[in-house]
């Protein structure tokens, strides 16, 4: 087997040094009560060629571009990934290295993470970002727990228009602590209704997503004010960070913690994972922030370098008193993101964000002209909700057969939104693609 280099001679020589007669003897401390009765019931090893055939067949049973036109976002976005990023990400010194606990031999990862932290902080308008969490969902959960730790409050207010899966994961994390999650409804225009917050106390955090799950851009400044008036921290979540190439960032509007999903930045969708949990806060809260942090340092010769720092927050030192139990970050995904942002640049990011919005607005306009209802009046970024007429399900299925996925049906997440579909348009869709979609829907 090509991954197992030991020859029979190697094994014999090693057993000799150990003074054991066989490898079996090395397992003498494993009692019978713990052993398997029979061998592993696994098929014989596949060669690389058999494996490739088998997996290609499975991959072929997946609906992806260019065969399929998928107009879906909802936390997983189709953006162009430059060849350079894929190529650089394959460098095995990045891929096959471990956590940079020995900084002298890991300066590549460490500088890259420091750069990532900086780009994220600048994008979100915050003072400090960590070196990533797992995904947008766990990032929200960690943000709420962090606010609870800081304020001592026992309840959090979470907008219903935050990604449904993020809310479910937050619920899972908050249940054992007995913390209350109060749901803020949405208004007719698609934005969060903040009025329930009036007079509410004991709140640790108010969490809003922008752009929200319906694609609507929220009024973060007002939400921040309202949160702070109640003594709560203001948490801004997101699932499409490209929006901040165009929109006013959360930091400028009073956010205390910003958390979300960074998959849009050069990371393949990969059927939902691995993603990238982005997380940022203000320096005054840094000791309460979960996750790894890279800081600048100087070596014995005065040379600049980078190290993991403020590790006393983390599980390997604080153990049960840690800010989180997190051990790994999503280092390679953070690197992926940084490479993408480095390639796109500040000017490029602005143009890409504008393209996304303009294309989505184009589709919105064409669908409105065709007589379909744009459900929410609030301005949107690259996603929006359309209310289709009775019987659209048939059209939707007909379109599937034509290899077009006309958005995400919302009724499984929001039962009151029957016949409503969440459509997404990014820079990968052309005018022709969108015209074709409208044509197919109308026919």
């Amino acid at each position, binding site marked *: 087997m090509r991954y197992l280099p030991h020859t029979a001679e190697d094994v014999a020589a090693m057993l000799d040094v150990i003074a054991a007669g066989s490898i079996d003897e090395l397992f003498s401390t494993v009692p019978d009560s713990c052993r398997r009765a029979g061998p592993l019931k696994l098929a014989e090893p596949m060669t690389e060629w058999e494996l490739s055939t088998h997996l290609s067949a499975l991959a072929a*049973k997946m609906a992806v571009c260019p065969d399929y036109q998928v107009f879906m976002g909802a936390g997983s976005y189709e953006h162009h990934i430059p060849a350079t990023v894929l190529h650089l990400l394959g460098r095995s010194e990045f891929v096959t290295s471990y956590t940079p606990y*020995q900084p*002298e031999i890991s300066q590549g990862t460490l500088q890259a993470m420091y750069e990532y932290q900086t780009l994220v902080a600048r994008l979100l308008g915050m003072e400090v970002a960590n070196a990533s969490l797992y995904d947008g969902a766990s990032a929200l959960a960690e943000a709420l727990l962090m606010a609870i730790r800081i304020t001592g409050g026992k309840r959090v207010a979470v907008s219903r228009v935050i990604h449904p899966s993020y809310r479910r994961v937050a619920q899972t994390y908050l249940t054992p602590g007995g913390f209350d999650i109060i749901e803020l409804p949405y208004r007719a225009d698609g934005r969060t209704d903040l009025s329930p917050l009036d007079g509410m106390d004991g709140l640790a955090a108010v969490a809003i997503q922008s752009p929200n799950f319906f694609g609507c851009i929220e009024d973060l400044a007002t939400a921040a004010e309202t949160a702070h008036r109640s003594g709560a921290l203001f948490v801004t979540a997101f699932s499409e960070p490209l929006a*901040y190439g165009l929109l006013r960032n959360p930091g400028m509007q009073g956010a205390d913690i910003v958390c979300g999903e960074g998959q849009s930045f050069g990371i393949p969708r990969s059927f939902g994972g691995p993603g990238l949990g982005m997380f940022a806060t203000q320096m005054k809260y840094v000791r309460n922030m979960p996750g790894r942090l890279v800081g600048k*340092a100087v070596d014995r010769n005065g040379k600049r370098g980078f190290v993991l720092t403020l590790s006393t927050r983390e599980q390997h030192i604080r153990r049960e008193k840690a800010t989180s139990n997190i051990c790994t970050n999503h*280092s390679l*995904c953070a690197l992926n993101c940084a490479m993408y942002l*480095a390639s796109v*640049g500040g000017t490029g990011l602005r143009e890409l964000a504008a393209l996304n919005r303009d294309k989505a607005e184009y589709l919105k306009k064409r669908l409105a002209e065709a007589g379909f209802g744009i459900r929410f009046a609030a301005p949107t970024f690259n996603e929006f909700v359309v209310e289709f007429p009775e019987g659209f399900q048939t059209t939707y299925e007909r379109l599937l057969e034509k290899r077009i996925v006309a958005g995400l049906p919302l009724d499984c997440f929001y039962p009151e939104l029957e016949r409503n579909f969440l459509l997404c348009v990014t820079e990968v869709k052309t005018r022709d693609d969108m015209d074709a979609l409208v044509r197919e829907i109308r026919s």
Partner: protein
Amino acid sequence: MTLFPAAPGLILNEPLLWEKGKRGRCGISIPARDVEPCPLEEDLLGDAPDFPDLSEVDVVRHYTRLSQWNFGVDSGTYPLGSCTMKYNPKINDTMASLPGFAAAHPLLPESLVQGGLRLMHELERLLAEITGLDAVTLQPAAGAQGELTGMLMIYAYHANKGSRRSKIIVPDTAHGTNPASAALCGFQPLKVKSNEQGILSPETIAEVMDEDVAGIMVTNPNTLGLFEENMREIADIVHRKDGLVYCDGANMNAVMGIVHLGCMGVDILHLNLHKTFSTPHGGGGPGSGPVCVSKHLEPFLPVPRVIEEQGRYRLSEAFPRSIGKVHAFHGNFGIMVRAYSYILSMGPELKTASRLAVLNANYVKESLKGVFHLPYDRPCMHECVFSDELQKDLKVTTLDMAKRLMDYGFHPPTVYFPLVVPGAIMIEPPETESKEDVDLLIEAMKAIAREARENPDLLRTAPHLCKVTRLDEVEAARHPCLTG
């Protein structure tokens, strides 16, 4: 004269991203604009973020140079105990990059993602077979998240019976994530000591096990590299008071095809795909932490679950006692593809992998005992633990020796863990390390022990060949500079 891997060489400097570039450069193809601009309301518009503008060449040179400052498994031996830094097969990455997998949206209608759902279902079956447990979730994104999932399930199990237990037994050898995960679920870790043989005694557990203890978290083999021989008895003691047994499966690489977790009395186990199952560590992640459980705990697994019905696959939420979701979608699918490829490539050879891993570790242990202090002179599993006790009067520490090892061309082993051995040096030479590479590592460590006697300052100022010398971590923590 032994030729060790390390050699001095030309390495290139590279500034920070924002120290390069020029306004107006771009490193990607922006698609042509084929729609009219739609100006956004003034009050919503922000400034463009303060990012550098770089050309494609700027970006390629930047990251190529940065990568050359790193050391990976592909560079050389990486004997990090508890991390299982085995070789990451390249075919696995190729499979994960297949467009059908890489470009798939997680919320597509089920009929359009049968390939992915089938892969997940099969991987669950394979992991169940390898561990000897019954049901699996692939959702947790990492080992620590798998532990949290396990703790949440223990919490749910007892809550479902109307009981509120507040404690979890955690051995002194536990990885830091164990008590942290327990605490996240509102459990108070109840610490117990391992015995003089480095393993848990049933009596110690019996002493503390009562109806307020929800369960025990055990790592087996433990972090000293020793098999917890009393596991079955301990499991029985815990079960008798209706507690659950959680096993941290980080060290599974020692025992594939050899142990049966179900027989061992384990109720819940997490695996680290990025350790045992060869998926790359990526500089600290992403990994994947599937959780395997015995039948009676299946109802509590996270949803959605992958269900197979006559060759068709679907996702089901029909599990009312589930702990809920721990991941936005299905888990780290890209990592699952790699692990699946690995398991199919190895088949029953997984057992050989474990046997050879254990052979490598015992070989290192026998070769270095006497050179370094061996706190537990017993058969080890896939890793062995030494300490700097013998170097104490030379005033040389574990840290000094670890830093010096880099000058020989090796990544240092895990140091100062587990906590029960002061100055611990944990060496795990996975089965993908050949005898020649292991011999070189042994020789390098012997050379360092000699240097500790003859030239200790060399160690205290090591490393000398890396891009930077020792960094002032104290100043970095006192005056943190976390953003450029």
